[in-house]
């Protein structure tokens, strides 16, 4: 498969005063792959995403997203990237359609086109029945699904999903993971998925990156990492073991 890097960073660093959030991050994500972004809370994953989006300026190093510099060409980057933050924000006093319509307008999609898209998107994430309910009354799972619907409306070529399954029940988690998979397959989207749900990440990721204390400890396909760390060549290896191995090494 002809693959090229769509997201690339080189010695990307960010510090707040004396506190280093991300240090010397160099990695890349290939076009149309699902990249699982792992790491404990506070390891700098969200900061990395913000730097890739151009919302935060790196202290040093550079990043390129879809051949644009997020610092200088933030608007271009934001056009091709869909971002769902960890605590996904919607306007509680508006219903799902109004929320999505607002997003469509911000993306310069004319109302005539967006109304069809919104209907399709809500249908595909199973929110059609609740479309005219105020988002304030939505459950956590429904809000996350609305977030996926937002990605459908925007149709970016890259999606950054920050903890999309956090706090969801198993059924909800499965649904979100399925939607993510279908986004990747049907729309050929590149997906950067940050999550603590290792089983799910293992199920859908092409490659993973493990970030601990602001450093990228390992990058690669799960089987390769397993072979390297645990010395086993077994398809049945669980990501949990690999992850814990890396984690213990760094802590030690």
């Amino acid at each position, binding site marked *: 498969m002809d693959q090229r890097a769509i997201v690339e960073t080189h010695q990307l660093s960010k510090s707040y005063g004396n506190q280093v959030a991300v240090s010397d991050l160099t990695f890349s994500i290939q076009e149309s792959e699902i990249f699982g972004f792992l790491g404990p809370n506070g390891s700098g994953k969200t900061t990395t995403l913000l730097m890739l*989006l151009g919302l935060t300026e790196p202290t040093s190093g550079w990043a390129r997203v879809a051949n644009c510099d997020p610092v200088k060409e933030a608007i271009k980057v*934001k056009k091709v990237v869909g971002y769902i933050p960890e605590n*996904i924000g*919607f306007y509680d006093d508006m219903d799902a359609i109004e929320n999505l319509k607002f997003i469509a307008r*911000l*993306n*310069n999609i004319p109302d005539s086109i967006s109304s069809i898209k919104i209907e399709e998107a809500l249908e595909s994430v199973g929110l059609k029945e609740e479309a005219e309910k105020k988002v304030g009354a939505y459950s956590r799972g429904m809000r996350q699904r609305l977030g996926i619907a937002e990605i459908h409306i925007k149709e970016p070529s890259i999606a950054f999903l920050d903890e999309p399954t956090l706090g969801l029940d198993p059924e909800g988690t499965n649904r979100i993971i399925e939607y993510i998979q279908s986004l990747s397959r049907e729309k050929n989207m590149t997906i950067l998925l940050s999550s603590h749900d290792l089983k799910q990440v293992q199920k859908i990721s092409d490659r993973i990156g493990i970030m601990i204390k602001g450093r990228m400890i390992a990058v690669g396909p799960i089987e390769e990492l397993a072979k390297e760390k645990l010395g086993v060549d077994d398809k049945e290896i669980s990501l949990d073991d690999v992850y814990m191995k890396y984690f213990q090494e760094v802590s030690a």
Partner: protein
Amino acid sequence: MTGIGAIFRKELADHFSSYRFVILFALIAMVSLITTYMVGIGLSEELSGIAKPKFVFLMLFTSTGPLFSLVQFVAFFGPLIGLILGFDSINRERSAGTLSKLASQPIYRDSIINGKFLSGVFTIAIMLMSILLVVSGLGLTLIGVVPGVEEVWRIFIYLIISIFYISFWLGISILFSILFRGIATSALATLAIWIFFSFFVSMGATVVANAMVPLDRATMEDPEMVMRHVRLQRVVSLLSPMQLYNDSTAIIIDPMRKTTGSLVLMGAVERLLSERFRRPLGLSQSIYVVLPHLITLIAVTFICFGLSYYVFMRQEIRPI
């Protein structure tokens, strides 16, 4: 300016459909109608049987009646409109997590704050304009005098000044909503600023004047000292935009007033002239008299917005 239109539309819809706008508007409309009604009844009684003086229509706005005049009411209560419309504009989005989502859309970051400020100004303009129109209509039926061209111009200029004045307070409240993360904190801070400017600056002016140029029995006799005292008091009190607004609108809406200075400060001849010849000032002359006040008022409005713009553009937007 990508995105500013979408944000403007959404904010405007939010303003007009919010309970706080409805309550505020109802309150202001009610007070202004009652005030105008009382002033109008009083005026028509006083004026019955005598020739109508010039600019009687403007007296509708400036006569104090039993309570206060409409101009005084707007000067005192107007800031609240601006403060209530803006005190949670940014920090509510921040705490709801919508700010980082907004910022990750392909729009310039300043569209967010520009759209919010403009929609606020537009809301204020509509609110004031409709109230002035309703009040004028009521006044027409009560005193039965059609306003002249100059009077209409004066009311129009008064409207523009008032929009700037209230937008200044909107700018203050948006600035506080950027600076303070908590909605309650920014609400309290805006209220504190309002109270500070409406009561404490004038009090402070007296205190400063008393401290710097004390007036006792001996110095009371000395006109030089009295003048210095009063001048100092005025300068300090002009620090309050409320005072600026009061001075400028008083001149614009009342052609009989010829100076923003107080009577004490005038020389004997000047005082004689202004009291002796009770002829109204032309519109252009009125504007000329208050031009420094107007420019200052507009400048502080822009400075205030510019400050919030600067702080907002430099602040980091992180999802919480």
